[in-house]
């Protein structure tokens, strides 16, 4: 397969690494070469986290700036941390949900407006999918499965990997929460699919 580079971002604890690993496992099931780089740091204690997933045989584990085919983002402000990796007209799937931190709880006006973030993304690409993933995850019965919702959306708009490979990988990665995660995945998939027609 041709090379495909994907950046994932969010806050520590949202499950960025989980879905990165799911995608890697799905790729292996289809005999697609994959490299994964986990950009963690002091993330569990409130910081941002990102990962690079490179399909199809790359040398470097890190994606060069301006080269990523797509970004999956679990918290809307975190797109700012990784947008420079996106190629022109690359695709973006992002949660519209926010997670406030210390500073924005005290001064909510310091959290950038959705319109500003959207404008910044659109200066780079017109392929932007925004999902109310927090709401969709809650409707699916798992408020924590925002990551699975985004994964579903990505899967619906992308022929990179078969849907069955991803759902198989979701089950393999965590058998205990498989049903809950698959439901959240389905919700994201359906939402994005219906949005396509609009």
């Amino acid at each position, binding site marked *: 397969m041709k090379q495909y580079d994907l950046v994932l971002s969010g806050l520590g604890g949202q499950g960025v690494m989980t879905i990165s690993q799911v995608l890697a496992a799905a790729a292996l099931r289809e005999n697609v070469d994959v490299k994964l780089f986990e950009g963690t740091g002091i993330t569990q204690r*409130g910081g941002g986290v990102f990962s690079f997933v490179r399909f199809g045989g790359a040398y470097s584990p890190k994606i060069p700036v301006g080269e990523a085919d797509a970004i999956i983002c679990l918290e809307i402000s975190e797109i700012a941390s990784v947008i420079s990796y996106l190629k022109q007209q690359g695709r973006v799937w992002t949660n519209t949900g926010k997670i406030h931190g210390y500073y924005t709880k005290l001064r909510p006006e310091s959290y950038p407006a959705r319109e500003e973030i959207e404008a910044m993304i659109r200066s780079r690409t017109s392929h932007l999918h925004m999902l109310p993933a927090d709401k969709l995850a809650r409707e699916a019965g798992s408020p924590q499965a925002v990551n699975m919702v985004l994964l579903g959306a990505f899967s619906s708009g992308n022929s990179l990997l078969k849907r069955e490979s991803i759902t198989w990988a979701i089950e393999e990665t965590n058998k205990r929460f498989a049903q809950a995660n698959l439901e959240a995945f389905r919700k994201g998939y359906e939402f994005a699919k219906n949005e396509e027609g609009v």
Partner: protein
Amino acid sequence: MSVQRSTREHGPKEQILLSGNQAIARAAVEAGVSLVTGYPGTPSTYVIEDLLRTPDLGFRVEWSINEKVAFELATGVSWAGLRSLVTMKMSGLNVAADSFLSVQYSGATGGLVLYVADDPNVYYGMVEQDSRHYARLAVAPMLMPATPQEALDFTRFAFTLSEQIGRPVMIQGTTTLANTYELVNPGQIESIQREPSFEFNIAKYAKAGAAACVIQHQDTLKALERFGILTEDLNPLSVNGSKIGVIATGVTWNYLQEVLHRYRLKPSTLKVGVAHPLPTKKIEALLSKVDTVVVLEELEPFIEETVMALNGKMDHRVEVIGKIHGPLSRTGDYDVDVVASALGEVYREGIPQSQTARGVSEQAQDLKVKRLNTFCVGCPHRATYYALNQAIEKLGYKKHEVIITGDIGCTILGMNEPFQSCWTEISMGSSISLAQGFKYAGIKTPVVATIGDGTFFHAGIPALLNASHNKTNLTVIILDNHWASMTGMQPHVGSGDPSYAEEKQVIMVEGIVRASGIENVWRVNPYQTKRMIETVMDAVSSPEISVIISDAECAIQKRRRKKGGGFLKVKPEKCVGLEACEHSCIEVLGCPALGRSEDGKAFIDPSICTACGLCHHVCSYGAI
């Protein structure tokens, strides 16, 4: 196939996705080690974590109290003829260095491999040191894998090499290597059947005779030379007719490959897999064929300095592009763009620069939300630092009149808002001795040292005994949350970990503190806020050395074992709103469970609140 399961379960001929750290863990399994030990230190932590999660290993894997002890344990195993692996981050090597240097001279019998992980760009905190310098200092051979496959192969080979030359062997990793996952071909798992035994030979194993030490040094130099010969193939040299050469080591090799393939460039190349001894003959061979050489290595110009020296022998005929005269940096880590930019100096037309991405990154910078690194929800340290700040205020001191020294681990988050309590952070255990030093300088106002439990066991004990012996007037607060939390809640000698299969002696902090002769010792639950504040006030006012053990388990560990429990709620009718409140709960505590609701009042997230009660204490309107 779960990528979390790894190591032992897979046989050869079956490719598996492994990270650099997992690959090193796998190598230890394949090499038939008897012991893997170390101290939690990210980015090396996951080697041992991975092994601890693997059932039926058949050998001992455990965390040691500190890196020095870990290295000495491995030495015992090696000198008795069996194989061992020690893992640590670069700061840990500094701790183990005393023994490491000595053992390097004495030698190894069973293969002894030391994996040290550096952290270019400091993803995880501490000094951005280049541990390759230890290889020079210790006269130690060092291998530098570029990929997880190499991490597996080099580490596996290192055990054999260690036995062949009779010396410990170092493996150098970095954050990028540790956190990169790729498809790896594992090898056969070897079974080592050896009877342990140790020979009496003080000329080899002791250091009290000058002549013996010099001979050990000479023998170690010879062993290093033999290592260089045995590992020539790990430095592939590819010379074509090009007048441009590139030398690359570690993960930079991957970035180089990406750039060469993308822009169809064909320089001569030398991949340095052996950091020490450097392949000087191959470097000379490359220099004799090119006019320009680019040296790619993260952190220090370690290879570049040798390249310059060899170039000097050739009357400086080659232009060397690296860090010494720019443009590459000695700080931070590399990526494809850094390497492309460096090669762009030589291949001027061959490599276009990406302009448009830069425009977006400026826009993006303005939109980044500043995030606070703080204690987790319910963390006892939040309660302790809150009480400490309150006590200082109630005693009539201004905030910056009382020096508070900090230490490594979760406790150091007390340096951030909203507490801004810790003023310093040096190394494991130094909070106490630094505090003593401030007193020796004559600082008249109280000095308080804060330190975690794992850290106290690791290195704080000698400092405390030193302070006690000298009767220095200090307050020491040991924040005992029972685990080494920052690195992922590893157990230490004071943890009562129910998952232990064998009997372990749990060591009590209070016992050690009292044994040092200190009389003012209090053990307090920090969630009992009023009592905690009073105790800190007593300790700080006392003219004698005082120790408070702030004792409550790490909130994450507690939750893992025991789900459920209550949560607190805000009574909106009593809350005056976050704007109107002079000391709002959010501002004063910064707890992630505290939020702001639509109407500007405080709100508690019931899904994460642990009902620690601190916000209830802080609210002067009785709204919680």
